[in-house]
């Protein structure tokens, strides 16, 4: 089935350290991003969308069993999966949300920096892969639920105590 350009209203949920593709008008959704980052990819020509929910900046695991947990392997695996479905790098754009610091901790220990390190890694990997990051809602201290419309390429961010934003 090809994308008809009409949103079906169907929701596909992406868990933590998970990625899914959509090409049939579904909305991709990932909940409660804290220091984690959700990255939406879109090829507007073939209307192929992807959403990956990463937790950490760099994959240094020996076995690399769980590539979607990390920004570097997560982004690269997602791009590979999109290309396998006919997407072209030159057309793919990205949007990202998350990377918050949930708790203010004394002494600026590593705990508070995971969000920031994730942001830096996502920026760096996208640049290395030559993917244009066209919009972002990153950092701060609020959790974000991210909805990505696979028809329009629009990303909606839902947070507690602030109005929804569309990027």
């Amino acid at each position, binding site marked *: 089935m090809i994308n008809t350009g009409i949103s079906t209203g169907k929701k596909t949920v992406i868990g933590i350290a998970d990625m899914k593709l959509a090409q049939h008008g579904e909305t991709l959704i990932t909940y409660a991003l804290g220091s984690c980052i959700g990255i939406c990819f879109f090829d507007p020509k073939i209307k192929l969308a992807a959403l990956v929910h990463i937790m950490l900046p760099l994959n240094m695991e020996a076995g690399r069993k769980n590539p979607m947990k990390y920004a570097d392997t997560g982004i690269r695996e997602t791009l590979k999966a999109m290309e396998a479905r006919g997407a072209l790098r030159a057309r793919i754009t990205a949007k990202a949300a998350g990377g918050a610091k949930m708790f203010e901790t004394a*002494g600026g220990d590593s705990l508070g920096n995971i969000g920031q390190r994730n942001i830096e890694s996502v920026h760096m990997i996208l640049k290395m892969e030559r993917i244009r990051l066209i919009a972002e809602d990153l950092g701060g201290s609020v*959790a974000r639920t991210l909805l990505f419309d696979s028809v329009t390429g629009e990303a909606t961010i839902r947070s507690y105590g602030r109005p929804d934003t569309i990027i």
Partner: protein
Amino acid sequence: MKNYDELSVMEIDVLREIGSIGTGNAAGALSKLLGRTVKITLPEVRIMGYNEAIDWIGGPEPITTGILVRISGQINGLMLDVQPLDFVNLILECMLGETINDYQEMTELQSSALMEIGNIMISTFINALSDLAGISVELTVPSLVIDMQGAILAVPMAEFGGQTDYLMTIGGNFSCDNREVSCRLLLSPDIRSLNFLLGKLGVD
């Protein structure tokens, strides 16, 4: 070194006992503070995949209060006190004679009362644990956040995410005047500390 998902039944029993003693002491401290009968219901040790853990806490988006303390010294880890609205109102009613309908109504005084309660429960738990194992640990100043519970639970996941695909929590639930309250006290040690702790307790 054993990862969380490689523990034996006996090791899990020992950890459950820690949870029982720690939570029991925390319940005692809370009981004194509130002037009510606070008991623990079921101490539990859980080793869960990330998304399983989110389901267990009751879904990603509900808003809750989280109080976080970092443990360092002979063991390293995080301890979280998750206080849903029913528990928050129990505390506020006992301590300040007031309740709230929504977290957005919460005042500065109310949130510092909750943070203090969380801090006392966590410190009491950790003191019981360090006495039991004969170890010394330090705790950071607590930090409080009110936000989606999925993002709060993801803090210990991300902290140890480079070592494991699982979240381990040792903790329990409470009842107050025979009514169950949904407060959760969750200890997440890193893998080295978990193994050290089991060794100290004679089960490695």
